[in-house]
């Protein structure tokens, strides 16, 4: 972040949100890393250190923890925020639903970042629908500048009505950069006080009914607030027959396109800042006033669903707008033209394809997966969420469901083999250190309790790599860089009743393979159980960049391509029909030496 003048900065959407939270006096701000939301907390931590602010910023171990920690600060009358990606909100949905009923005292903002596409997620789910389910208001910013301003609106609205408020940016807002006009940081100096009110904070079902009624009243009041309802951007005298309702980044595309093609007088364009709760009177009026209505929004038809009369409505429900995938300008443009009864000229097609991502050259995970495949080629490999999901390229990841699922799925596969009586294959689950802490521990307790048998490899690279190398509970460094406490992985495993726990360096190929075989025996022994292997080596991004080995390919290489297809190290390339090593990207891990079937890859002395 650099400054143009004191009040204008180029900010990424996530930084703009982070700055908004800090400027509006939030004092507890929490999150679990997840693309596209990760940079919100790192920017808050930076602003905290830059301005020497008294606030607590934390990387929590999961989204549920993050939500509840931040919420409690708002129970105490102070302002707070929690940020996560959309699937993280699934994890935090329990406190979300309940806190809508209890409400809050100090403003409470939930930022849930969606990922239409999806670019870096397992679903394209729409957090606005979660807000609707929870019955809380949700804002849908159309630019980083607006995201920044909406933080203020959201905090104020939350505090005024005693209700959690969601901001739902999408990837294209989170990771857009724009010159943003900014303000100054408020230091509210509020004293945290807990006013006991068991009928609210500890409400039993009887009082919950009452709280639900209050929540409905709050929503009715909010939907009746005029300046939060859709606003016509292109006010003109004559009312056209066509109307377009749009929110989020999709609105900005529509606006730019209409402006560019001089169509702004062809239809009434309404921007929807708060897709829920919408005023039914307003929507009814809209349905009465226009002959044709088009709704353009990401990713589910949330605004569209609320329209009381959809006879003349085009959108996702009738398939006029594609109901899945990102709404890029290229997707919207032809739909917009058809709606406005215009022709779309021939648009050249984008060439499909592109390079798929792969683990870094010398990533310890690649070595771990190589060993698993080598030692136990017939096993089933439930996987998890992180850089190591890319082990799928190596054929060593068979499933990827959601955070922490690898362990439960390993248990499920085991029980399934056992009860059906089919040949019981060995099951090897892989999970990263951060994901294990996030939701693997309870899964392991469940597996132990219910007597499942499998191998669990914890890929411990001492960081949350995929999302930009955030620290974890095992490393103990906190979000703002200050020392916290590290938890003891071995202690956890011991507490979960694990009897087979071995720590192996994945670059020690022979030892890793031997340990995997030993682990398999343990899972099948009469007095055996779950075998845990900790594959320990730091992620390249946080380790010292020094080559351990100097590796090269000898004349013996036959050009069979085995190493390139099966090991997929980006530093292994083809030069003149033979394998070669791109010395500039090779990290010198030496693992490929073990991969070549005829030993043509050598360590140079």
């Amino acid at each position, binding site marked *: 972040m650099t400054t143009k003048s004191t009040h204008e900065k*180029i900010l990424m959407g996530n930084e703009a949100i982070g700055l908004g939270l800090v400027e509006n006096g939030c004092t507890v701000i929490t999150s679990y890393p997840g693309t596209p939301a990760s940079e919100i907390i790192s920017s808050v931590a930076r602003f905290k250190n830059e301005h020497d602010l008294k606030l607590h910023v934390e990387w929590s171990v999961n989204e549920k923890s993050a939500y509840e920690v931040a919420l409690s600060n708002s129970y105490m009358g102070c302002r707070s925020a929690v940020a996560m990606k959309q699937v993280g909100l699934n994890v935090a949905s329990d406190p979300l639903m309940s806190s809508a009923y209890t409400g809050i005292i100090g403003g409470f903002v939930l930022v849930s970042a969606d990922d239409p596409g999806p670019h870096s997620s397992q679903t394209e789910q729409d957090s606005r629908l979660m807000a609707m389910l929870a019955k809380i208001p949700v804002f849908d910013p159309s630019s980083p500048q607006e995201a920044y301003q909406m933080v203020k609106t959201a905090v104020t609205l939350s505090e005024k009505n005693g209700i959690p408020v969601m901001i739902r940016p999408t990837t294209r807002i989170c990771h857009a*950069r*724009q010159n943003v006009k900014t303000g100054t940081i408020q230091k509210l100096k509020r004293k945290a006080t807990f006013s006991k009110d068991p009928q609210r904070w500890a409400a039993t079902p009887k009082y919950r009914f009452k709280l639900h009624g209050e929540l409905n009243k709050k929503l009715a009041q909010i939907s009746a607030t005029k300046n939060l309802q859709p606003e016509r951007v292109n006010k003109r005298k004559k009312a056209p027959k066509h109307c377009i309702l749009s929110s989020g980044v999709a609105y900005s595309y529509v606006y730019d396109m209409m402006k560019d093609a001089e169509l702004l007088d062809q239809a009434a364009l309404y921007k929807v800042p708060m897709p829920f709760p919408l005023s039914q009177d307003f929507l009814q009026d809209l349905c009465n006033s226009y002959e044709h209505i088009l709704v353009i929004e990401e990713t589910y038809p949330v605004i569209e669903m609320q329209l009381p009369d959809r006879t003349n409505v085009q959108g996702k429900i009738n398939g006029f707008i594609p109901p899945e995938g990102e709404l890029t300008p290229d997707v919207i443009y032809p739909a917009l033209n058809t709606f406005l009864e215009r022709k779309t000229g021939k648009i050249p097609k*984008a060439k499909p394809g592109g390079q798929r991502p792969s683990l*870094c050259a010398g990533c310890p995970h690649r070595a771990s997966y190589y060993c698993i495949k080598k030692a136990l080629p017939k096993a089933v490999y439930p996987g998890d969420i992180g850089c190591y999901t890319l082990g799928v390229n190596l054929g060593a990841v068979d499933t990827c469901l959601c955070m922490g699922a690898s362990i439960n799925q390993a248990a499920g596969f085991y029980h399934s083999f056992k009860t059906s009586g089919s040949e019981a294959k060995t099951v090897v689950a892989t999970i990263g250190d951060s994901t294990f802490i996030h939701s693997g521990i309870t899964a392991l307790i469940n597996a132990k309790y219910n007597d499942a048998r499998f191998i669990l490899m914890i890929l411990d690279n001492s960081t949350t790599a995929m999302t930009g190398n955030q620290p974890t509970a095992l490393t103990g460094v906190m979000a703002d860089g200050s020392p916290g406490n590290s938890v003891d992985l071995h202690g956890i495993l011991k507490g979960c009743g694990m009897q087979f726990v071995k720590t192996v360096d994945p670059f020690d190929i022979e030892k890793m393979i031997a340990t995997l075989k030993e682990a398999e025996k343990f899972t099948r022994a009469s007095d055996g159980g779950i075998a845990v292997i900790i594959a320990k080596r730091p992620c390249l991004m946080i380790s010292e960049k020094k080559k351990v080995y100097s590796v090269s390919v000898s004349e013996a290489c036959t050009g069979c391509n085995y190493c390139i297809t099966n090991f997929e190290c980006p530093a292994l390339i083809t030069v003149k029909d033979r394998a070669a090593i791109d010395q500039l990207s090779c990290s010198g891990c030496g693992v490929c030496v073990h991969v070549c079937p005829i030993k043509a890859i050598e360590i140079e002395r």
Partner: protein
Amino acid sequence: MTKKKIDSQIVICGRGGQGVLFLTRLIDEVAVHQGNNVISSETHGMAMRGGSVASYIRIGDYASPLIRTGQADIILALTDSELQFNNHLLKKDTGTVFVNSPNKKNNAVNATRISKDLGSVVVANLVLLGYACKDDTFPFDFSTVKTVLKKISPPRFLDSNIEALTAGYQI
């Protein structure tokens, strides 16, 4: 600060880890330095592990961050093979491509080789940018880019960054 009103849509494509993000930030800053509005879009997440990545920069009066097919004025391709996935974005008659490539073709420069000669692979992005600055179709001039690069480079990379930009410009 020299004001210069610019209207330009720029695509930067390459692979994760090639410095697409740094180049995007640099161009954003140069645009604002010259008194323009800018909105750009970056790729983060899984694709950054060596996958195809692209940034879009829109300088001028734009509300949204993506570039529609046939609207880009400039493409800067840090990997030749990524160009094919982005070429459709280029304006048909007036668009210009600058590409890092060992092959001899229009507006191609072997930025990777020059960067290696300078002792680092990671500055190929700046070599390509320096090269683009020579061209009349490119909206920024070398000295402005250099000034801003000085401002935003982390101190330990400052010298090698400037060296790379200059090397590209002097081709």
